[in-house]
Every structure is written in C-alpha cells, then in structure tokens.
C-alpha cells in the first residue's frame, strides 16, 4: 500500500477563491515546528488566513469574500421561471 502511494508524488491544487487541495504523502509542520497530522488523505490548506482551524480550510474564505481572481462582471447563473424564492417564501 505505502509503496504504491509513495510512487505518486504529492500534489497541490489551487482552488479559485478558495484553499489549496493537497494529495499524497507529505510532512506538515506548524509555526512551532510541530508536526501536524491531517485527518484525511486529501486535505485543504487555508490560504485566505480566516480559517479557525488553520492550517486547514474551514470554508471561512466564503465569509470574508476571498478572491484569487477579479470577480466576473456578469452573473454565473440564471433561472427559468418560477423565481428562485417561491419555495422558501411559503
């Protein structure tokens, strides 16, 4: 098992407006040089600075409006009728 997984080098993928997704085996250390053990095989590192569970992402980047690219000028989604609020309004 470990021979197979170490055959794949670790990878880091950046998510637009979000964290860095880390896959593969690598050692992680905190500010004090203490080893940090991720709780899962694939984990997300905060890069917005707002997470309460740093170095991991907790979704706070959405609350603080973290952007890695300028926001697009037009809406990303449109809706057919009926209006999206009808269900909640009941």
């Amino acid at each position, binding site marked *: 098992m470990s021979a197979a997984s170490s055959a794949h080098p670790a990878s880091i993928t950046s998510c637009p407006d979000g964290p860095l997704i880390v896959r593969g085996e690598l050692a992680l250390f905190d500010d004090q040089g203490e080893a940090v053990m991720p709780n*899962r095989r*694939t984990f997300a590192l905060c890069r917005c600075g707002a997470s309460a569970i740093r170095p991991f992402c*907790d979704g706070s980047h*959405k609350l603080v409006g973290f952007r890695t690219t300028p926001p697009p000028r037009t809406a990303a989604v449109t*809706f057919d009728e*009926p209006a*999206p609020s009808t269900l909640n309004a009941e």
Partner: protein
Amino acid sequence: MDVPSARGEVTEILIARLTAGERAPLDDLAATTTAALAASDDVLTDDDLQLALFLMYELHYGGLDGVADTWEWDPRLLAVRERIEREFEAALRRAVSQPRATRDVSEALFALVTDDDGPSLSAFVERDATAEQVREILACRTIYTLKEADPHSWAIPRLHGRAKSALVEIQADEYGGGRPERLHATIFAAALRGAGLDDRYGAYADHVPATVYTSMNLMSLFGLHRRLRGAIVGHLAAYEMTSSLPCRAYATGLRRLGFGDDVTDYFDEHVEADAVHEQLAARDLAGSLADDEPEIANDILFGAAACLAIDGRLWGGLRERFEVGESALRKPLP
C-alpha cells in the same frame, strides 16, 4: 429498521401488505395511491405519500424488519413507487426553478449556494436553541445521517473517469478512509448516544415530520435513477458546499449548551471534511461531469437547487416551529 406506524391510507395498506409475506396482493395499494396522489395538496409535504415512498426506497438500503427481501424488486410494488415518483418529480420541477450556467457549472454551483439565503437553523442553534431543540434536530437528522453518503454512492457505477474518481475520493472520506470508527454515520451514532438519544436506525421514524422523508426521498429518487445521475451529483455538491460553516455554528451552539466532545465531534469533523469535499464536489466531480456529459449540465444544477430548496424547507420549518416555542416533532421524544 422497525416498520414505523402508518400516517394515512396508503402507508396503512402498504405496511399491511409488506408484512403479510411475499407476493401479497397489491391491487388496493395501487388504487389507493392513485387516489391519494390526486387528493394531495402538496406531495412535497404529504406525510402519507412521503412515508410510503421512503418505505419502498428503504427496501434498497437496510430493509425493513419483518418484511421479505424479495419485495425490493417486486414489479407490482415498483409500479406503485413509480406513480409516486412521477408526481414527486413533477412537484419538484414546479417548485424549483431550473438554474442555467452562464459560463461553467462549478462557478454556477458556487453562485447558487452563495445566493441561497433561506432561514438558517445553524445560526439559531449557535445562539438561541435549547438543549431539547437540539435533541429534536438530531432526531430529525437520523433518517439521513445514520446512512450518510449512501444515496450518493448509487451514482458511482454510473459515472466514468474524473467524475467517478472524484466521487469515490469524497465517499471514501465519508466512509472513514479505511477506519470504521471514522465512518461519518458511526461518528453521528456516537453523537446521538452522547446526547441521550437512540442510535438505532428508524428509532424516531414516528417522530419526524414529513419533510424529513421528503429530503431523504429526494436523494433516493436522484440516486436510484441513472437518468438523474446529474441531479444526484449536483445534490451532493450543494450539500457539501453548504455544510462546513453551518457545522461550525452547530458545534459552537452545542458547546454553549454543554454537550460533550462525543456530540460535537461529528460537527467538528464536518467543518474540516466538507471544506475539502466542497472543492472536490464542485470542481472535480460536478465540473468534470459537466465537461464530459454537457447534456446533463442542467440536471447537475437542478439537483443542487432542489437540495437547497428541499433542505431549506425542512430546516427552515424546524426553525419556524422553535421560534414560536413549539416542538418540530409529531410526538415528544421519550
């Protein structure tokens, strides 16, 4: 699970026939179901019809105690199920506006969840809920969370390549990554016990409102039909994308009320896990699926919008009851 109590004519006949042994006659069930569908004010909140659909779907999951396993593929029962499903899906399509991506599906998913501003139960739990209200919420969560991730797993053999790989990556984490004690359903069972609740599947089947079954049935409908594989993927994406911040609020509220680590562990785990799953689900899963099968891109967005609408209705409904000082359950917890 134990067979729950009937909630109307359809479930009365359904339960009687299922527990009567294999291949009991079903003619009266079909006729009663057709009449109940015609008479129902709203299939999405109908206690009798949603429980009936849930029980028929449950035959594909853990099964019902005292009910023969062969009912799962009984064509007469499947025909009744199909009648309810058809009306269920039609009601969903009337209630949920079809979103369309203007650029790409993952960007549209992020916009959908950002714009979702239904009443937040997690914010209520964080600041205002009582311990008894939290116990009611946990009881309402048992129907899905004690089999967390299972309905989305139906999609695995229906996907290919990058989308399949992403779904398995998410589900492996949901199922504990090889550590049975970290199965999310198992962590939730520990939370239930820590809160003084029963962790057997279906223990609160008679307590929970119809909307709990609607939420579960939505996932089973999407998950069990290959035609709707886009919708179950979109559902998972929306679910994961609206989980980490609310779970943090839940954990804070539970600590405020003095619940122990055994109860908060489930929510703490989801803060971290779902911040990862959100990215994998929106980009590697839904984004790849939309690239590979552009003809189902709108189904992905419909599944996401349906998740937000139906779960918004469920959890917003609980909050409304709590705010006027009422129980959200059909009968008090023991």
